């Protein structure tokens, strides 16, 4: 091997090292971010979930002590709280009920959101920014205030009942507030933009001539919609459904403000364990299990997003 070739190889190697360093830095920053803001808090919660409740500050045991060493510390941890979650039927009932409420409200949001997104995508070009604005506008006020506003609308003396009484549709006020129905209304209302926006994005990208082509090939309006528009907005539908389902599953504010005593949701149980019971270890165990349940839809959501991106290339 000649000297010249060695020099070329060396230069090549140095270039490669530089390139690797650059890439490493680029990837390291978001990873450090995730590590600090997600993984570290999660490890702390996981640790608390393996501890025992104690009347102390903080209200759990054991605390990490440098003098005793890590081995003794780990020996104190156990899965007692997770076993408790399985033994007491309150928890799995709450998980199931949350799952049911989240699924139902996701379907309801899709039913309400799809026509809105479709209408937006079909609207004249100059109207679309305005319509988009109207969808995003609610984010400009606090989520909490908007949910309180629904209390004012749905209560027995609220606007809705006053209107229904005035118009003679009902003779006595409907009990909507403090029922699961109110929770559905709240969730659909709150998460509607998350359903509309990805579906709108998918429909907006679609070439109008595809519908004409489908009609030209013998489709009626409806079958063209069913065979072309719906499959092409599938990515948006899936994204929207996950964006609604995942937060709705752990929803706490809406069921506690609009729901009644019979509305069982895991977010509410979690809150009560933390603040009423002050049983941090059980509350942490509830949170860890909730996260594990949500990992499945989150992974599916990611996969869907990736597939969408690939098909666009």
């Amino acid at each position, binding site marked *: 091997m000649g000297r010249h070739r060695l020099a070329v190889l060396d230069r090549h190697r140095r270039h490669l090292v530089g390139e690797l360093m650059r890439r490493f830095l680029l990837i390291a920053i978001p990873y450090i971010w995730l590590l600090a803001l997600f993984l570290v808090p999660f490890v702390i919660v996981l640790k608390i979930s393996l501890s025992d409740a104690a009347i102390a500050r903080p209200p759990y045991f054991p605390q990490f002590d440098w003098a005793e060493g890590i081995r003794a510390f780990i020996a104190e941890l156990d899965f007692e709280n997770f076993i408790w979650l399985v033994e007491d039927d309150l928890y799995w009932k709450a998980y199931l009920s949350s799952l049911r409420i989240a699924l139902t409200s996701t379907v309801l949001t899709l039913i309400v959101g799809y026509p809105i997104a479709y209408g937006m995508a079909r609207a004249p070009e100059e109207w679309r920014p305005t319509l988009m604005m109207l969808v995003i506008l609610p984010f400009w006020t606090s989520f909490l205030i908007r949910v309180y506003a629904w209390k004012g609308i749905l209560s027995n003396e609220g606007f809705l009942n006053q209107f229904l009484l005035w118009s003679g549709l009902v003779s006595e006020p409907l009990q909507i507030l403090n029922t699961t129905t109110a929770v559905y209304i709240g969730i659909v209302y709150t998460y509607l933009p998350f359903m509309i926006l990805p579906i709108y994005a998918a429909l907006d990208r679609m070439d109008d001539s595809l519908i004409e082509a489908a*009609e030209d090939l013998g489709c009626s309006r409806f079958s063209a919609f069913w065979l072309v528009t719906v499959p092409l907005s599938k990515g948006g539908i899936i994204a929207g459904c996950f964006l609604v389902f995942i937060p709705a599953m752990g929803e706490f504010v809406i069921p506690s403000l609009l729901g009644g005593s019979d509305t069982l949701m895991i977010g509410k149980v979690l809150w009560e364990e933390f603040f009423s019971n002050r049983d941090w270890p059980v509350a942490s165990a509830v949170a860890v299990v909730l996260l594990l349940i949500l990992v499945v839809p989150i992974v599916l959501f990611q996969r869907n997003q990736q597939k969408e991106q690939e098909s666009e290339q």
Partner: protein
Amino acid sequence: MIQFQNVTKRFGDFTAIDNLTIDIFEREFFALLGPSGCGKTTMMRMLAGFESPTEGKIFLAGQDIAPVPPNQRAVNMMFQSYALFPHLSVWENIAFGLKREGMPKPEINARVDEMLRLTRLEKFARRRPHQISGGQRQRVALARSLAKAPKLLLLDEPLGALDRKLREETQFELMDIQEKTGTTFVIVTHDQEEAMTVASRVAVMDNGQVMQVATPADIYEAPNSVYVADFIGDVNLIEGKVTATGEGTFALHWRDGAEPLRVKSPTGFSEGQTAHLAIRPEKVTISAERPADAANAVQGKVLDIAYLGNLSTYHVELPTGDIIKAQTANTRRISRRDYTWEDTVWLSWTATGGILLAN
């Protein structure tokens, strides 16, 4: 087979099609040619059923098609953007229209395979549209629109997205397929070469009106108006006043002091009428000496030479300031060219070389 009867189409104030009457025959390859915005696409969309005429009637095989929705017309369209369904494979795209007809499965399979063979796409049947090249996509679009064996196939700028070489090949493929299937093709294009190559008849359109309908050769050799002559190919237009000199022969007085030009014309002109002589550059001969037997000859100086490879176009400036283009085939190598810039040359043409147009 197709008749447009006094069809007018307006979009608000804008008149896209203005009182248009035209006939298209069975098994014909008909081209609608015109600049963008001339209404040719609107005509096609009316045939497909995506637009309906504001006034007038369109007949397909003797039947008024205004009330027939697009999905029930025996007309299929090949879209400019191809409009292939991205979520379906090539095979499923071609089968789409057949499935809507409720055709039995074995027949669909046979028909799709036939279409794949016709367009030489057998190898790509399982691929998605985004996994094949532009030329292949264009063939899928053609196969899909032909699969239902329509009486009439509409092609909207079908070759616009292809590069020149591929476009030329595809033009011949289109003609082959049209002959094999015996379908009536109507093609919309702004590319005159494309229209001339593929079509048996060409309609030149402008501002929502049909200027001339004729075979490609007639459109080129015998345009009926200055607009058509100018739109198709390259042309010299010389304006002047006509006087009759004999049976079907006229003299065009085009400049004071210049020798009048002699033209033969089958159409008559009144004395002193203003007319244009349209003469194609390749009909003008360029020579160093005045040809003895030429009916028309003018002298000028070579101003510019456009070298096109197989041809050269000479821009010759006359003493009057007019510029006349003459085209010659480059049968010799360029280094042995006879004329160069600033050379004084003679341009000549016969009395029948050009055509006299009233407007």
